């Protein structure tokens, strides 16, 4: 694990800890000191602490690390070891999402019907809609409309001549990042079999986490994989500017994990939206504060608020390309009045061109 993550190459410059959003609000957590301590030998203190569950796996540390230490894979592996010891962290929402992931590993999700989008179960393009129906149910109260995102994606695909098949289900992202390899493997095998059975050639994602997982953590996946922003960036579209100001939040998975910064901005530009950048953007964008439904507390809320402060200073509307980022931001907005609206990229594109 130490070798794989290049932890040996750490020069103890502590740049990672200086930029880590968790270190900034939480103090005690520090990527550098976990790596340093682990080099001596992973001790009980690390494996039994809540510290290992604090990391957002946002990748900022890796972005600035001069030695190329892969703190992300390091975190994943430390969590596996911690889980073996029975240290499973404090999941958010009383662990309901973990239960849902387990259910999805065993059975199928009855596909909910879309309001407008046309689908075709035999198509060779698949839209992998992930957990949107569950999120939709869980987060209606904070104003998150997951099925509208799914519907908008399908409508946009329809607009460009594609009638896709749609699959709802868990990609295993959260299990993987929470060190639950057993669950992850189940979900991975299930999804790989599903894709094979359907015989699809192309898979489109609206969730950057599903996209990252299929692309980087399913080594046997050979279908063409695209985030919806990448698909849209290839299409012809136009729109007109309005008098509101927009900014774009780079989701960690889409940005730092996969290096996709331009496609969403390109799409926004084409529909007449001039993106005003926040203080932190592209490679240095700050996380929405929670990942893999783990360790959400008032400190995470602090990270979120800092991000929303940046957005509010910059624009009227915050565009995200990740349903989870949207949920987290809307959660904060639901109990804190701000002069800011949060929207998904596909929602805005659908509004402008359909």
């Amino acid at each position, binding site marked *: 694990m130490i070798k794989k993550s290049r932890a040996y*190459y750490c*020069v*103890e*410059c*502590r*740049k*990672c*800890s*200086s*930029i*880590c959003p968790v*270190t*900034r609000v939480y*103090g*005690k957590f*520090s990527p*550098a*000191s976990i790596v340093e301590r682990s080099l001596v030998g992973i001790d009980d203190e690390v494996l039994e602490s809540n510290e290992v569950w604090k990391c957002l796996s946002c990748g900022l540390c890796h972005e*600035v690390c*001069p*030695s*190329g230490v892969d703190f992300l894979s390091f975190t994943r592996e430390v969590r596996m070891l911690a889980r073996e010891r029975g240290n499973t962290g404090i999941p958010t929402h009383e662990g309901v999402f973990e239960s849902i992931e387990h259910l999805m590993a065993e059975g199928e999700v009855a596909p909910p019907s879309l309001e407008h989008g046309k689908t075709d179960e035999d198509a060779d393009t698949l839209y992998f809609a992930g957990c949107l129906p569950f999120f939709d149910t869980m987060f209606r109260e904070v104003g998150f409309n997951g099925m509208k995102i799914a519907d908008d994606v399908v409508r946009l695909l329809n607009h460009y001549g594609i009638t896709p098949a749609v699959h709802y289900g868990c990609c295993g992202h959260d299990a993987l990042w929470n060190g639950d390899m057993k669950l992850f493997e189940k979900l991975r095998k299930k999804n790989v079999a599903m894709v094979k059975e359907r015989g699809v050639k192309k898979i489109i994602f609206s969730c950057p986490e599903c996209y990252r997982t299929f692309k980087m953590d399913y080594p046997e996946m050979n279908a063409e994989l695209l985030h919806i922003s990448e698909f849209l960036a290839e299409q012809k579209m136009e729109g007109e500017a309005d008098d509101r100001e927009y900014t774009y939040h780079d989701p960690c998975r889409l940005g730092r994990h996969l290096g996709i910064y331009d496609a969403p901005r390109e799409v926004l530009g084409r529909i007449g939206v001039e993106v005003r950048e926040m*203080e932190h953007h*592209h*490679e*240095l964008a700050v996380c929405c504060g929670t990942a893999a439904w783990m360790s959400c507390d008032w400190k995470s809320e602090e990270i979120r608020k800092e991000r929303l402060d940046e957005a509010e200073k910059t624009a009227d509307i915050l565009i995200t390309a990740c349903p989870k980022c949207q949920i987290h931001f809307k959660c904060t907005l639901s109990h804190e009045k701000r002069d800011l609206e949060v929207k998904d990229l596909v929602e805005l594109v659908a509004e402008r061109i359909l």
Partner: protein
Amino acid sequence: MKNVVVIGGGVAGIQASLDLAERGIHVYLVEKEPSIGGRMALLDKTMSTNDCSICILAPKMNDCFSHPNIEVLEYSEVVGLTGEAGDFTVKVRRKAKYVDASKCTGCGDCMEKCPTEIPNEYNSNLNKRKAIYLPFPQAVPRKATIDEEYCLKLTKNRCGLCQKICKAEAIDYTQKDTMVELSAAAIIVAVGLSVYDPRDLHEYGYGKYENVRTWMEYERLINAAGPTHGHLKCAPDGRRPKKIAFIQCVGSRDVKRCRWCSSVCCMVSIKSAMLANEHYNDLESYIFYSDLRVFSKRFYEYSKRGEKDYRITYIHARPGEIAEDKRTKNLTLYYENEDEGKVDALEVEMVVLATPILPAEDTVRIAETLGLEVDDDGFLKTVDYLQYPVETSKPGVYVAGCCERPKDITESVIQASAAAAKAAVLAEG
């Protein structure tokens, strides 16, 4: 007795030329800029004695130019090589300066009148120079050069003011590049360095925050011949800084950028911080380091002296990020306080980034022209680092200075003398 061709007229090239010339060997010194002097001519002070850099170099530049055994071919580049050790033919393009060097007195009237201003690369682009110019006040030879890329007469057939004003009638717009062939028994390559542009380390905001500078820019800012006449000034109002932070290893010892330690930066930053304090004795400096590499003779003592006498604080951390106050343009550095295990913030007026030394831009071109091997990092390769530290992969071609790897002035001079000694064997044989 045969000739030696020295390529590059920085301190290494000058030293090698002088050593050879003193032994009675004829040297052609080929320099791509209009003046010899190289990087050292642009530095303010030298370490670890804080002597004036140009004051040490200028006499050597003049000795070199006026030495009966040295012919300086300034504003020239090597374009071809044939033959072998003991009997090379070096092809050199002498670029047109559009000024008759035998007539130009270096009075500077033309530069005053020239209407075309362009960024001054000799001042790290911090101010402007004219299209007809001297690279710096102590230039050798002190002869004007017209920049054909920007001169209105040469590009648009307008203006012609310099010709009208020149009392010596030295301006000649019809000059053309000429080719010369030089015979040489040996060649010494000393083509120098360039400096990393840290724009891609977005976390430090170079290029975006006005008060974030590179060490090379700082050298010019603190230099009396520089764009601010040696006064440190900060945006937005030109006030002088009271606190400066220096960040080490910005782009160096970095697997995504330059893997190597640039070897001089720790000392450069300590020197820079000392100079700042010499200019303004209430000024405090903070040097953020990963390892303070002060290994050469008296370097460690120098670093201690900085702490004791020059208000320097050394902090073991690489800041993760710099934020700028939009109004005051002050900069806040965030870094981990390793004793207390928390992120601290430090507000300063200026940040200086210790960016690494790279091979000069045309190192690859020169290596290809001469048929030399370069190492993985783009520096010229020597046959064996321990036993043959000045021999390139081609017999008869020797190397000196930063084109071989980053090094300080002392080491460059040592290597230059070693290269000269090796070249002399071929020239005398």
